[in-house]
């Protein structure tokens, strides 16, 4: 549109004539209905791939459904759920899941924060660094996990080789899969490696929207970089932190691929010889497809669903506090 083109309105016609009827309905349709149509595909897909499985899962959880006993179909009531409460395997898996979750989420988000803070400064080759930290995220999880599984091998593993350089385990190399602590560390390392860069980039983009004068003012007041990080940066990017905490919670509690491929004998899905690192997602898979008890597996999935909801809510609340929303 050119500003010089000023033409007077044709005489006799009011400036804002009511549009013709058909056009009116089109406008109305455009403003009232189109937005719903545009967001509908998401909800449609969510209904098919999200809502339906949850509901179907809940129904299956209330039934007996064993693949090896096709005749024993029928309603089970809450039997599958009450069995959960006394199932050692379930509590063991729950403990493992939370253990690995704590070992992965907390260092992951802290390191991501520190890396983002570093990247937010003037560096040489900024783009190179930023792309570099995202590379682990792009690597397919199966590929990276298989490499890590070899890294943490008992014989000829790189991790043990590094340790032997500093004098650990020359005689008896660590069997990473044998104990809870070592297997948890190994798995948490894989998770951290993959997600630190991703979270760091999210933090970085949030940090870049913080006005520079806030930092200048605080510097004048004598705040060092560490204090600036905790008292200015963290509160100001709090919504993003909240987002990453919730997403890490969901991801961490659903951990499956890493423990599965880390296992020496993935086919058994037992998470180590004594369930040292069997996560709940893995146990659900084992109960469903190894023990062939789909009803019980569905009940476990529902329990996991509820646990994730609760933990995510608690974490969200805690993070709000951290950000200074009093």
């Amino acid at each position, binding site marked *: 549109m050119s500003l010089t083109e000023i033409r007077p309105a044709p005489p006799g016609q009011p400036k804002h004539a009511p549009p013709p009827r058909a056009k009116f309905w089109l406008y109305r349709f455009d403003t009232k209905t189109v937005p719903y149509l545009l967001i509908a595909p998401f909800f449609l897909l969510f209904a098919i*791939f999200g809502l339906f499985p949850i509901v179907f899962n809940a129904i299956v959880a209330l039934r007996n459904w064993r693949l090896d006993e096709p005749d024993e179909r029928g309603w089970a009531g809450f039997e599958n759920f009450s069995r959960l409460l006394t199932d050692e395997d379930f509590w063991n898996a729950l403990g493992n899941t939370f253990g690995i979750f704590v070992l992965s989420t907390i260092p992951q988000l802290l390191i991501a924060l520190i890396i983002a803070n570093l990247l937010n400064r003037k560096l040489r080759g900024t783009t190179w660094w930023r792309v570099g930290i995202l590379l682990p995220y792009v690597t397919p999880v199966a590929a990276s996990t298989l490499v890590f599984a070899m890294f943490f091998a008992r014989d000829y593993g790189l991790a043990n080789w590094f340790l032997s350089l500093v004098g650990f385990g020359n005689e008896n190399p660590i069997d990473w899969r044998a*104990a809870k602590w070592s297997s948890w560390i190994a798995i948490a390392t894989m998770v951290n490696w993959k997600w630190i860069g991703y979270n760091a980039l999210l933090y970085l983009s949030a940090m870049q929207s913080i006005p520079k004068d806030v930092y200048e003012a605080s510097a004048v007041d004598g705040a060092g970089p560490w204090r600036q990080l905790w008292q200015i940066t963290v509160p100001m990017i709090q919504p993003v932190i909240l987002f990453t905490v919730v997403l890490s919670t969901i991801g961490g509690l659903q951990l499956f691929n890493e423990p599965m491929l880390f296992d020496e004998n993935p086919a058994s899905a037992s998470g180590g010889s*004594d369930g040292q690192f069997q996560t709940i997602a893995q146990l659900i898979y084992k109960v469903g497809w190894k023990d062939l008890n789909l009803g019980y597996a569905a009940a476990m999935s529902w329990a996991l669903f509820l646990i994730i909801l609760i933990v995510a809510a608690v974490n969200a609340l805690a993070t709000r506090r951290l950000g200074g929303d009093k």
Partner: protein
Amino acid sequence: MGRSVRRVAAVGLVAALAISGCSGQSLEGGNDDAAAGQVSLKINFWGDMGLDKLKAKYEAEHTNVKIVLNSGEYNAQHEDLQKKLVAGSGAPDISAVDEGFIVQFRSQADQFVNLVDKGASSYESKYLGWKWKASQSADGKQIGLGTDVGGLAMCYRTDLFKAAGLPTDRESVSKLWPTWDEFIATGQKYTKATGKKFVDSGTNLFNPVLAQQPVGFYDDQEALQMEGGPKVAFDTSMKAIEAGISANLASFQPNWDQGFKKDQFAALACPAWMLGHIQDTAPDQKGKWDIASIPGGGGNWGGSWWTIPKQGKNVDEAYKFVEWLIQPEQQIEVFKTVGNLPSQPALYKDPAVLDFKKEFFTNAPTGQIFAATAENLQPQYLGKKNGPTRVAVENVITRVQQGGLKPDAAWAEAVKAADKASKA
């Protein structure tokens, strides 16, 4: 699974389905061309079952049939089949099922074509009796026709034996170990002379010894009985671990495959189908392996059946192909290509089998060796929960190998684990 789909909604069973559903699937064999008189048969199996040449031959003889071979990973293929049976569609036209899974599938016999209806009963007398029965449901439906059996022998490395001052020709080696105790003693000699481990894993002693017992984990009334066969096998594996001759590697895993290449063990219990795996894993060890008899006599470990899921659209053509596959000529062809030993005893006397020598294994007469073990073996009833029970007990052996459990406390743990698995 990417982060973007990690929503609360994707929890659990759905997630498990999605993740494992990604494994070992290819596009469904198109049945669209059936209208033009063309039939496409999709066949799922694992590893190498020697079908490549046979496919070409069959297609040349039956121009209207196209055969699609889909080889995948052992566990993934069985799980994929199980999921497709639950889903009611998507299963291959023909699927191989291994001994480890046949019990699980025969209890869902309604999902498979009853091969007796297609006229398979005429083959009953040709098969080893137990092989025929193992794929039969409780009410007599036959879901599969046998391919191979896993007659047992002991594979060993002649070069490593020589370095340890042990005999290397197969007769003398067989004489070293008529019993498992003598086998372990030989192992100790080897370990002492070389400082290296003798066998790959305690579990790979447990399994063959268990296979030699008259009764396995379950008796034919489906009652778990640990004090018989399992106890004997478990004690043998404990003895080997305590003697320090086991490299403690988990079978069929990357570390194990690496163990072949790094000479981490010198002897390996080998059913006939293991020969193919050794050849593929360590191709440069050609001529360094030989085959001796296994301590304690015959036994069976593994072996498969061809099954036809009922949901297929071309079950008649599928049956024709399976029927063709199990004819002696084709079975011998498979034996020669990959080493899988047929499950029809008449073939054990066939000159084509008896005279066959395997170059990779120092020209060992594999036909004679495995045919002899297969005929002598004691068939074992496999309970419904045989698979999970085996895994549970193997895990206890692994715990001992990892040092987390003392050998004298292990048996009680094994009984506990087996009991739990039997009730899972």
